[in-house]
Protein backbone atom coordinates (compact mmCIF):
# COMPACT_ATOMS: atom_id res chain seq x y z
CA UNK A 1 0.00 0.00 0.00
CA UNK A 2 1.12 3.50 -0.69
CA UNK A 3 0.36 7.00 0.52
CA UNK A 4 0.11 9.51 -2.29
CA UNK A 5 0.68 13.06 -1.07
CA UNK A 6 0.01 15.94 -3.43
CA UNK A 7 0.44 19.68 -2.84
CA UNK A 8 -1.55 21.66 -5.40
CA UNK A 9 -2.92 25.14 -6.01
CA UNK A 10 -6.02 25.76 -3.90
CA UNK A 11 -8.25 26.73 -6.82
CA UNK A 12 -7.43 23.39 -8.49
CA UNK A 13 -8.80 21.37 -5.56
CA UNK A 14 -12.27 20.91 -7.03
CA UNK A 15 -10.90 19.79 -10.41
CA UNK A 16 -8.57 17.28 -8.73
CA UNK A 17 -11.36 15.98 -6.51
CA UNK A 18 -13.76 15.45 -9.42
CA UNK A 19 -11.09 13.74 -11.50
CA UNK A 20 -10.17 11.44 -8.62
CA UNK A 21 -13.80 10.54 -7.96
CA UNK A 22 -14.27 9.77 -11.64
CA UNK A 23 -11.18 7.56 -11.43
CA UNK A 24 -12.74 5.55 -8.61
CA UNK A 25 -10.85 6.97 -5.63
CA UNK A 26 -13.09 6.60 -2.54
CA UNK A 27 -11.32 8.78 0.01
CA UNK A 28 -9.19 11.92 0.17
CA UNK A 29 -7.88 13.87 3.15
CA UNK A 30 -7.35 17.58 2.48
CA UNK A 31 -5.30 20.05 4.52
CA UNK A 32 -4.85 23.76 3.91
CA UNK A 33 -1.12 24.38 4.04
CA UNK A 34 1.37 27.14 3.34
CA UNK A 35 4.78 26.85 1.84
CA UNK A 36 7.21 27.90 -0.81
CA UNK A 37 9.08 26.19 -3.60
CA UNK A 38 10.55 27.57 -6.76
CA UNK A 39 7.57 29.86 -7.18
CA UNK A 40 8.72 31.81 -4.10
CA UNK A 41 6.41 34.32 -2.46
CA UNK A 42 5.09 37.75 -3.33
CA UNK A 43 4.94 41.19 -1.79
CA UNK A 44 1.87 42.94 -0.39
CA UNK A 45 1.65 46.64 0.45
CA UNK A 46 -0.21 47.92 3.52
CA UNK A 47 -0.24 51.64 4.23
CA UNK A 48 2.71 52.06 1.92
CA UNK A 49 4.84 49.47 3.71
CA UNK A 50 5.84 46.37 1.76
CA UNK A 51 5.57 42.94 3.32
CA UNK A 52 7.22 39.89 1.77
CA UNK A 53 4.80 36.98 1.87
CA UNK A 54 7.05 33.91 1.61
CA UNK A 55 4.54 31.21 2.40
CA UNK A 56 1.82 30.89 -0.20
CA UNK A 57 -1.41 29.03 0.47
CA UNK A 58 -1.60 25.55 -1.01
CA UNK A 59 -3.78 22.49 -0.53
CA UNK A 60 -2.32 19.16 0.50
CA UNK A 61 -4.19 15.98 -0.49
CA UNK A 62 -3.46 12.58 1.02
CA UNK A 63 -4.73 9.45 -0.70
CA UNK A 64 -4.19 5.87 0.41
CA UNK A 65 -3.96 3.52 -2.53
CA UNK A 66 -3.19 -0.10 -3.32
CA UNK A 67 0.15 -0.31 -5.13
CA UNK A 68 -1.20 -1.23 -8.60
CA UNK A 69 -3.46 1.85 -8.62
CA UNK A 70 -0.75 4.36 -7.78
CA UNK A 71 0.50 5.29 -11.25
CA UNK A 72 -3.02 5.85 -12.56
CA UNK A 73 -3.98 8.08 -9.59
CA UNK A 74 -0.78 10.11 -9.94
CA UNK A 75 -1.53 10.65 -13.62
CA UNK A 76 -5.06 11.82 -12.79
CA UNK A 77 -3.79 14.31 -10.21
CA UNK A 78 -1.04 15.58 -12.50
CA UNK A 79 -3.47 16.18 -15.32
CA UNK A 80 -6.13 17.86 -13.18
CA UNK A 81 -3.78 20.12 -11.21
CA UNK A 82 -1.68 21.27 -14.14
CA UNK A 83 -1.89 24.90 -15.20
CA UNK A 84 1.50 25.00 -16.90
CA UNK A 85 2.60 27.83 -14.66
CA UNK A 86 5.19 27.83 -11.89
CA UNK A 87 3.74 26.78 -8.52
CA UNK A 88 1.55 23.89 -9.65
CA UNK A 89 2.86 21.77 -6.80
CA UNK A 90 4.35 18.34 -6.20
CA UNK A 91 3.29 14.74 -5.73
CA UNK A 92 5.23 12.15 -3.75
CA UNK A 93 4.63 8.56 -2.81
CA UNK A 94 5.57 6.76 0.39
CA UNK A 95 5.23 3.19 1.60
CA UNK A 96 2.50 2.42 4.10
CA UNK A 97 3.01 -0.44 6.53
CA UNK A 98 -0.64 -1.03 7.26
CA UNK A 99 -4.07 0.59 7.21
CA UNK A 100 -6.83 -0.02 9.75
CA UNK A 101 -10.50 0.87 9.33
CA UNK A 102 -11.62 2.23 12.69
CA UNK A 103 -15.25 1.02 12.52
CA UNK A 104 -14.63 -2.62 11.63
CA UNK A 105 -11.02 -3.24 12.50
CA UNK A 106 -10.30 -4.47 8.93
CA UNK A 107 -6.66 -4.15 7.93
CA UNK A 108 -4.73 -4.06 4.69
CA UNK A 109 -6.01 -3.11 1.21
CA UNK A 110 -9.64 -3.86 2.12
CA UNK A 111 -9.46 -1.04 4.69
CA UNK A 112 -8.68 1.56 2.00
Amino acid sequence: MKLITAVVKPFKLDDVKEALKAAGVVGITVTEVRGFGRQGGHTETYRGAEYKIDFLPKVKLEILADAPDVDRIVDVISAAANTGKIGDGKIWITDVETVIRVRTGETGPSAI
Partner: protein
Amino acid sequence: MESGNLAWVLVSAALVLFMTPGLALFYGGMDKGRNVLNMLMMNFYCLLIVPVLWVIAGYSLAQTPFDNGFIGNFDSFFLKDITVAGDGGALATVAFLGMFAVITPALISGAVADRMKFSAWAIFVPVWLFLVFVPVFKWVYGGWLFDRGSIDFAGGTAIHVNAGVAALAAVLVLGARKSDASPPHSLPLVMIGTGILWFGWFGFNAGSALAANGQAAQAFMNTFLAAAAAGLAWLVVEWVRDGHPTTLGAASGVVAGLVAITPAAGYVSGPAPIVIGLIAGVICCYAVRLKKKFGYDDALDVVGVHLVGGLVGSILIGFFSNPSFFDGEFGEGIFYGGNAELLVEQIIANVAAMIWSFVVTFVIMIALKKTIGVRVSSEAEATGLDLSEHGETAYHSAS
Protein backbone atom coordinates in the same frame (compact mmCIF):
# COMPACT_ATOMS: atom_id res chain seq x y z
CA MET B 1 -33.46 71.66 25.83
CA GLU B 2 -36.47 71.16 23.57
CA SER B 3 -37.72 67.64 23.07
CA GLY B 4 -36.49 67.48 19.47
CA ASN B 5 -32.99 68.54 20.54
CA LEU B 6 -33.03 66.16 23.48
CA ALA B 7 -33.98 63.26 21.20
CA TRP B 8 -31.11 64.04 18.83
CA VAL B 9 -28.55 64.33 21.64
CA LEU B 10 -29.66 60.99 23.13
CA VAL B 11 -29.51 59.26 19.74
CA SER B 12 -26.13 60.87 19.06
CA ALA B 13 -24.81 59.63 22.41
CA ALA B 14 -25.73 56.06 21.43
CA LEU B 15 -24.09 56.55 18.03
CA VAL B 16 -20.87 57.72 19.68
CA LEU B 17 -20.91 54.76 22.06
CA PHE B 18 -20.97 52.46 19.02
CA MET B 19 -17.74 54.02 17.75
CA THR B 20 -15.63 52.35 20.43
CA PRO B 21 -16.56 48.78 19.38
CA GLY B 22 -16.09 50.01 15.81
CA LEU B 23 -12.62 51.28 16.65
CA ALA B 24 -11.90 47.95 18.37
CA LEU B 25 -12.71 46.08 15.13
CA PHE B 26 -10.82 48.61 13.00
CA TYR B 27 -7.71 48.12 15.13
CA GLY B 28 -8.35 44.43 15.85
CA GLY B 29 -8.48 43.53 12.16
CA MET B 30 -5.20 45.34 11.55
CA ASP B 31 -3.53 43.58 14.44
CA LYS B 32 -2.03 40.10 14.52
CA GLY B 33 -4.42 37.17 14.96
CA ARG B 34 -2.72 36.19 18.22
CA ASN B 35 -3.32 39.65 19.72
CA VAL B 36 -6.76 40.53 18.38
CA LEU B 37 -8.65 39.80 21.61
CA ASN B 38 -6.20 41.92 23.58
CA MET B 39 -6.84 44.78 21.15
CA LEU B 40 -10.62 44.38 21.46
CA MET B 41 -10.31 44.24 25.24
CA MET B 42 -8.17 47.38 25.51
CA ASN B 43 -11.04 49.17 23.79
CA PHE B 44 -13.87 47.48 25.66
CA TYR B 45 -12.08 48.16 28.94
CA CYS B 46 -12.52 51.88 28.19
CA LEU B 47 -16.25 51.21 27.81
CA LEU B 48 -16.26 49.66 31.30
CA ILE B 49 -14.07 51.97 33.38
CA VAL B 50 -14.63 55.40 31.86
CA PRO B 51 -18.44 55.76 32.28
CA VAL B 52 -18.07 55.06 36.01
CA LEU B 53 -15.24 57.56 36.44
CA TRP B 54 -16.98 60.11 34.24
CA VAL B 55 -20.02 60.12 36.49
CA ILE B 56 -18.01 60.09 39.72
CA ALA B 57 -15.80 63.10 38.95
CA GLY B 58 -14.77 63.26 35.30
CA TYR B 59 -17.66 65.35 34.10
CA SER B 60 -17.48 67.62 37.12
CA LEU B 61 -13.77 68.35 36.65
CA ALA B 62 -14.14 68.71 32.88
CA GLN B 63 -17.11 71.05 32.80
CA THR B 64 -18.12 72.46 36.20
CA PRO B 65 -18.14 75.43 36.36
CA PHE B 66 -18.03 76.11 32.64
CA ASP B 67 -15.85 79.21 32.84
CA ASN B 68 -13.00 77.88 35.01
CA GLY B 69 -9.77 78.39 33.10
CA PHE B 70 -7.77 75.24 33.76
CA ILE B 71 -9.76 72.65 35.64
CA GLY B 72 -13.25 72.31 37.04
CA ASN B 73 -14.21 71.46 40.59
CA PHE B 74 -16.26 68.86 42.44
CA ASP B 75 -19.61 70.70 42.30
CA SER B 76 -21.08 67.93 40.16
CA PHE B 77 -19.35 65.10 42.05
CA PHE B 78 -21.43 61.95 41.41
CA LEU B 79 -23.68 64.16 39.23
CA LYS B 80 -24.75 66.16 42.26
CA ASP B 81 -27.44 68.70 41.33
CA ILE B 82 -27.77 67.37 37.78
CA THR B 83 -31.46 66.59 37.74
CA VAL B 84 -34.02 65.84 35.07
CA ALA B 85 -36.24 68.64 36.29
CA GLY B 86 -37.63 70.39 33.24
CA ASP B 87 -36.28 68.53 30.24
CA GLY B 88 -33.31 66.24 31.01
CA GLY B 89 -30.98 68.17 28.70
CA ALA B 90 -28.25 68.49 31.32
CA LEU B 91 -28.21 64.77 32.00
CA ALA B 92 -28.28 63.91 28.28
CA THR B 93 -25.26 66.19 27.78
CA VAL B 94 -23.34 64.41 30.55
CA ALA B 95 -24.04 61.08 28.84
CA PHE B 96 -23.14 62.42 25.39
CA LEU B 97 -19.82 63.88 26.57
CA GLY B 98 -19.11 60.68 28.50
CA MET B 99 -19.06 58.76 25.22
CA PHE B 100 -16.24 61.05 24.03
CA ALA B 101 -14.36 60.36 27.26
CA VAL B 102 -14.67 56.63 26.50
CA ILE B 103 -13.26 56.69 22.99
CA THR B 104 -10.39 59.13 23.59
CA PRO B 105 -8.13 56.81 25.63
CA ALA B 106 -9.31 53.93 23.43
CA LEU B 107 -7.69 55.66 20.44
CA ILE B 108 -4.27 55.24 22.09
CA SER B 109 -4.60 51.44 22.18
CA GLY B 110 -3.70 51.16 18.50
CA ALA B 111 -0.22 52.53 19.12
CA VAL B 112 0.71 50.28 22.05
CA ALA B 113 -0.60 47.11 20.38
CA ASP B 114 1.24 43.79 20.59
CA ARG B 115 3.34 44.45 23.71
CA MET B 116 1.66 46.46 26.48
CA LYS B 117 0.70 44.64 29.67
CA PHE B 118 -3.05 44.70 30.21
CA SER B 119 -2.55 45.49 33.90
CA ALA B 120 -0.55 48.57 32.90
CA TRP B 121 -3.28 49.59 30.45
CA ALA B 122 -5.89 49.08 33.17
CA ILE B 123 -4.15 51.70 35.31
CA PHE B 124 -3.06 53.92 32.45
CA VAL B 125 -6.61 54.59 31.23
CA PRO B 126 -8.11 56.04 34.44
CA VAL B 127 -4.95 58.00 35.30
CA TRP B 128 -4.71 59.40 31.77
CA LEU B 129 -8.40 60.24 31.78
CA PHE B 130 -8.05 62.50 34.82
CA LEU B 131 -4.59 63.93 34.20
CA VAL B 132 -4.77 64.48 30.45
CA PHE B 133 -8.21 64.11 28.90
CA VAL B 134 -10.11 66.06 31.56
CA PRO B 135 -7.84 69.14 31.73
CA VAL B 136 -7.36 69.41 27.96
CA PHE B 137 -11.11 68.99 27.45
CA LYS B 138 -11.66 71.74 30.00
CA TRP B 139 -9.21 74.13 28.32
CA VAL B 140 -10.82 73.59 24.92
CA TYR B 141 -14.46 73.64 26.06
CA GLY B 142 -14.87 76.51 28.50
CA GLY B 143 -11.28 77.00 29.66
CA TRP B 144 -8.42 79.28 28.69
CA LEU B 145 -7.99 78.06 25.11
CA PHE B 146 -11.71 78.55 24.56
CA ASP B 147 -11.50 82.05 26.04
CA ARG B 148 -8.64 82.97 23.72
CA GLY B 149 -10.88 82.23 20.74
CA SER B 150 -9.79 78.83 19.41
CA ILE B 151 -12.60 76.58 18.27
CA ASP B 152 -12.96 72.80 18.20
CA PHE B 153 -16.40 71.65 17.15
CA ALA B 154 -16.37 67.96 18.09
CA GLY B 155 -12.93 67.24 19.45
CA GLY B 156 -10.11 67.63 16.93
CA THR B 157 -7.76 69.10 19.53
CA ALA B 158 -9.41 67.79 22.69
CA ILE B 159 -9.71 64.23 21.40
CA HIS B 160 -7.71 63.33 18.28
CA VAL B 161 -4.62 65.52 18.68
CA ASN B 162 -4.69 64.83 22.42
CA ALA B 163 -4.85 61.03 22.00
CA GLY B 164 -2.51 61.06 19.00
CA VAL B 165 0.33 62.82 20.78
CA ALA B 166 -0.26 60.69 23.89
CA ALA B 167 0.14 57.63 21.65
CA LEU B 168 3.53 58.96 20.55
CA ALA B 169 4.67 59.54 24.14
CA ALA B 170 3.40 56.11 25.17
CA VAL B 171 5.28 54.19 22.47
CA LEU B 172 8.49 56.12 23.16
CA VAL B 173 8.45 54.76 26.72
CA LEU B 174 7.13 51.35 25.72
CA GLY B 175 9.69 50.72 22.99
CA ALA B 176 9.36 48.88 19.72
CA ARG B 177 7.84 45.48 19.22
CA LYS B 178 10.29 42.59 19.09
CA SER B 179 8.90 40.98 15.98
CA ASP B 180 8.60 42.71 12.64
CA ALA B 181 5.30 44.33 11.82
CA SER B 182 2.99 41.92 10.04
CA PRO B 183 0.14 42.50 7.60
CA PRO B 184 -3.41 42.93 8.97
CA HIS B 185 -4.79 39.56 10.06
CA SER B 186 -8.36 40.36 8.91
CA LEU B 187 -9.15 43.17 6.52
CA PRO B 188 -12.88 42.32 6.56
CA LEU B 189 -12.88 43.17 10.30
CA VAL B 190 -11.13 46.46 9.48
CA MET B 191 -13.85 47.29 6.95
CA ILE B 192 -16.69 46.46 9.36
CA GLY B 193 -14.98 48.62 11.98
CA THR B 194 -14.60 51.47 9.51
CA GLY B 195 -18.30 51.31 8.62
CA ILE B 196 -19.29 51.38 12.28
CA LEU B 197 -16.93 54.29 12.95
CA TRP B 198 -18.33 56.32 10.05
CA PHE B 199 -21.90 55.60 11.14
CA GLY B 200 -21.17 56.53 14.76
CA TRP B 201 -19.26 59.63 13.71
CA PHE B 202 -22.51 61.24 12.56
CA GLY B 203 -23.46 61.32 16.24
CA PHE B 204 -19.98 62.47 17.22
CA ASN B 205 -19.98 65.46 14.85
CA ALA B 206 -23.63 66.33 14.15
CA GLY B 207 -24.54 65.58 17.78
CA SER B 208 -21.97 68.14 18.91
CA ALA B 209 -24.35 70.90 17.85
CA LEU B 210 -26.23 69.70 20.96
CA ALA B 211 -29.38 70.54 19.02
CA ALA B 212 -31.33 69.29 16.02
CA ASN B 213 -30.65 72.40 13.95
CA GLY B 214 -29.00 73.67 10.79
CA GLN B 215 -25.52 73.47 12.26
CA ALA B 216 -26.15 69.79 13.03
CA ALA B 217 -27.33 69.21 9.46
CA GLN B 218 -24.22 70.88 8.03
CA ALA B 219 -21.97 68.94 10.42
CA PHE B 220 -23.73 65.77 9.23
CA MET B 221 -23.13 66.64 5.58
CA ASN B 222 -19.52 67.60 6.29
CA THR B 223 -18.93 64.25 8.02
CA PHE B 224 -20.35 62.49 4.98
CA LEU B 225 -18.27 64.44 2.45
CA ALA B 226 -14.91 64.76 4.19
CA ALA B 227 -14.70 61.03 4.87
CA ALA B 228 -15.51 60.19 1.26
CA ALA B 229 -13.05 62.75 -0.14
CA ALA B 230 -10.25 61.61 2.16
CA GLY B 231 -10.84 57.93 1.32
CA LEU B 232 -10.70 58.83 -2.34
CA ALA B 233 -7.51 60.87 -1.93
CA TRP B 234 -5.71 58.12 0.01
CA LEU B 235 -6.74 55.58 -2.62
CA VAL B 236 -5.45 57.70 -5.49
CA VAL B 237 -2.10 58.31 -3.80
CA GLU B 238 -1.67 54.59 -3.19
CA TRP B 239 -2.76 53.61 -6.65
CA VAL B 240 -0.27 55.98 -8.26
CA ARG B 241 2.53 55.51 -5.74
CA ASP B 242 2.30 51.82 -4.78
CA GLY B 243 0.42 50.31 -7.71
CA HIS B 244 -2.78 49.14 -6.03
CA PRO B 245 -5.88 50.75 -4.53
CA THR B 246 -6.08 48.83 -1.23
CA THR B 247 -8.99 48.18 1.12
CA LEU B 248 -6.82 49.25 4.06
CA GLY B 249 -6.05 52.47 2.20
CA ALA B 250 -9.74 53.18 1.64
CA ALA B 251 -10.52 52.50 5.30
CA SER B 252 -7.57 54.55 6.55
CA GLY B 253 -8.51 57.45 4.31
CA VAL B 254 -12.10 57.44 5.53
CA VAL B 255 -10.94 57.53 9.16
CA ALA B 256 -8.38 60.27 8.41
CA GLY B 257 -11.14 62.35 6.80
CA LEU B 258 -13.45 61.81 9.76
CA VAL B 259 -10.69 62.88 12.15
CA ALA B 260 -9.88 65.99 10.12
CA ILE B 261 -13.46 67.18 9.78
CA THR B 262 -14.18 66.65 13.48
CA PRO B 263 -12.91 70.03 14.73
CA ALA B 264 -14.36 71.84 11.70
CA ALA B 265 -17.70 70.04 11.29
CA GLY B 266 -19.95 72.82 12.57
CA TYR B 267 -17.85 75.72 11.27
CA VAL B 268 -17.36 75.00 7.57
CA SER B 269 -19.71 74.60 4.63
CA GLY B 270 -19.89 74.44 0.86
CA PRO B 271 -16.86 72.81 -0.78
CA ALA B 272 -14.72 73.16 2.39
CA PRO B 273 -15.37 69.61 3.72
CA ILE B 274 -14.29 68.12 0.40
CA VAL B 275 -11.10 70.19 0.36
CA ILE B 276 -10.35 69.37 4.00
CA GLY B 277 -10.96 65.68 3.28
CA LEU B 278 -8.72 65.63 0.22
CA ILE B 279 -5.89 67.38 2.06
CA ALA B 280 -6.20 65.08 5.07
CA GLY B 281 -6.28 61.98 2.87
CA VAL B 282 -3.07 62.91 1.07
CA ILE B 283 -1.17 64.15 4.14
CA CYS B 284 -2.13 61.22 6.39
CA CYS B 285 -1.25 58.72 3.64
CA TYR B 286 2.28 60.08 3.80
CA ALA B 287 2.27 60.69 7.56
CA VAL B 288 1.89 56.99 8.37
CA ARG B 289 5.42 56.60 6.95
CA LEU B 290 6.93 58.97 9.52
CA LYS B 291 7.29 56.15 12.02
CA LYS B 292 9.79 54.41 9.73
CA LYS B 293 11.73 57.63 9.25
CA PHE B 294 11.89 58.54 12.94
CA GLY B 295 11.91 55.03 14.39
CA TYR B 296 8.99 55.06 16.83
CA ASP B 297 6.84 51.94 16.77
CA ASP B 298 3.29 53.28 16.52
CA ALA B 299 1.81 49.89 15.68
CA LEU B 300 -1.47 50.86 13.99
CA ASP B 301 -0.67 54.48 13.05
CA VAL B 302 -2.47 56.47 15.73
CA VAL B 303 0.03 59.29 15.23
CA GLY B 304 -0.18 59.31 11.44
CA VAL B 305 -3.98 59.26 11.36
CA HIS B 306 -5.25 60.87 14.58
CA LEU B 307 -2.52 63.35 15.53
CA VAL B 308 -1.79 64.45 11.98
CA GLY B 309 -5.43 64.27 10.80
CA GLY B 310 -6.58 66.22 13.86
CA LEU B 311 -3.93 68.89 13.29
CA VAL B 312 -4.82 69.20 9.61
CA GLY B 313 -8.51 69.75 10.39
CA SER B 314 -7.91 72.06 13.31
CA ILE B 315 -5.42 74.24 11.43
CA LEU B 316 -7.59 74.38 8.30
CA ILE B 317 -10.37 75.90 10.41
CA GLY B 318 -8.18 79.01 10.38
CA PHE B 319 -8.78 79.17 6.62
CA PHE B 320 -12.27 77.75 6.12
CA SER B 321 -14.25 78.90 9.18
CA ASN B 322 -17.40 80.61 7.90
CA PRO B 323 -19.47 82.07 10.77
CA SER B 324 -21.86 84.02 8.57
CA PHE B 325 -23.12 80.77 7.02
CA PHE B 326 -24.16 79.57 10.49
CA ASP B 327 -25.16 82.92 11.85
CA GLY B 328 -22.48 82.09 14.44
CA GLU B 329 -20.25 84.03 16.78
CA PHE B 330 -16.97 82.20 16.20
CA GLY B 331 -13.96 83.65 14.33
CA GLU B 332 -13.71 83.98 10.57
CA GLY B 333 -11.20 81.99 8.55
CA ILE B 334 -8.76 83.63 6.14
CA PHE B 335 -10.81 82.53 3.11
CA TYR B 336 -13.99 84.04 4.54
CA GLY B 337 -12.95 87.55 5.36
CA GLY B 338 -10.92 86.92 8.48
CA ASN B 339 -7.31 87.73 9.24
CA ALA B 340 -4.79 85.28 10.68
CA GLU B 341 -6.09 85.70 14.22
CA LEU B 342 -8.16 82.51 14.28
CA LEU B 343 -5.36 80.54 12.61
CA VAL B 344 -2.92 81.70 15.29
CA GLU B 345 -5.35 80.70 18.05
CA GLN B 346 -5.83 77.26 16.46
CA ILE B 347 -2.07 76.78 16.43
CA ILE B 348 -1.70 77.93 20.04
CA ALA B 349 -4.49 75.61 21.19
CA ASN B 350 -2.96 72.58 19.49
CA VAL B 351 0.57 73.33 20.67
CA ALA B 352 -0.66 73.77 24.25
CA ALA B 353 -2.67 70.54 24.12
CA MET B 354 0.26 68.66 22.59
CA ILE B 355 2.78 69.84 25.17
CA TRP B 356 0.55 68.93 28.11
CA SER B 357 -0.56 65.61 26.68
CA PHE B 358 2.93 64.54 25.62
CA VAL B 359 4.66 65.48 28.88
CA VAL B 360 2.03 64.11 31.25
CA THR B 361 1.53 60.90 29.25
CA PHE B 362 5.30 60.39 29.18
CA VAL B 363 5.46 60.81 32.97
CA ILE B 364 2.53 58.41 33.53
CA MET B 365 4.18 55.78 31.35
CA ILE B 366 7.56 56.19 33.07
CA ALA B 367 5.85 55.84 36.47
CA LEU B 368 4.11 52.65 35.32
CA LYS B 369 7.35 51.32 33.84
CA LYS B 370 9.22 51.84 37.10
CA THR B 371 6.50 50.25 39.24
CA ILE B 372 4.44 47.45 37.69
CA GLY B 373 6.15 47.47 34.29
CA VAL B 374 4.54 48.27 30.96
CA ARG B 375 5.63 45.40 28.73
CA VAL B 376 4.67 41.76 28.61
CA SER B 377 7.51 39.21 28.69
CA SER B 378 9.34 38.38 25.48
CA GLU B 379 7.76 34.95 25.59
CA ALA B 380 4.25 36.39 25.90
CA GLU B 381 4.96 38.80 23.08
CA ALA B 382 6.02 35.90 20.86
CA THR B 383 3.14 33.58 21.71
CA GLY B 384 0.48 36.29 21.78
CA LEU B 385 -1.22 38.58 24.27
CA ASP B 386 -4.61 36.91 23.86
CA LEU B 387 -3.31 33.91 25.74
CA SER B 388 -0.86 35.64 28.12
CA GLU B 389 -3.15 38.50 29.17
CA HIS B 390 -6.63 37.01 28.82
CA GLY B 391 -6.25 33.22 28.73
CA GLU B 392 -8.21 33.08 25.49
CA THR B 393 -7.66 32.37 21.81
CA ALA B 394 -9.53 34.14 19.01
CA TYR B 395 -9.28 31.48 16.34
CA HIS B 396 -9.29 27.77 17.09
CA SER B 397 -8.23 25.71 14.11
CA ALA B 398 -10.90 23.06 14.67
CA SER B 399 -13.82 23.05 17.07
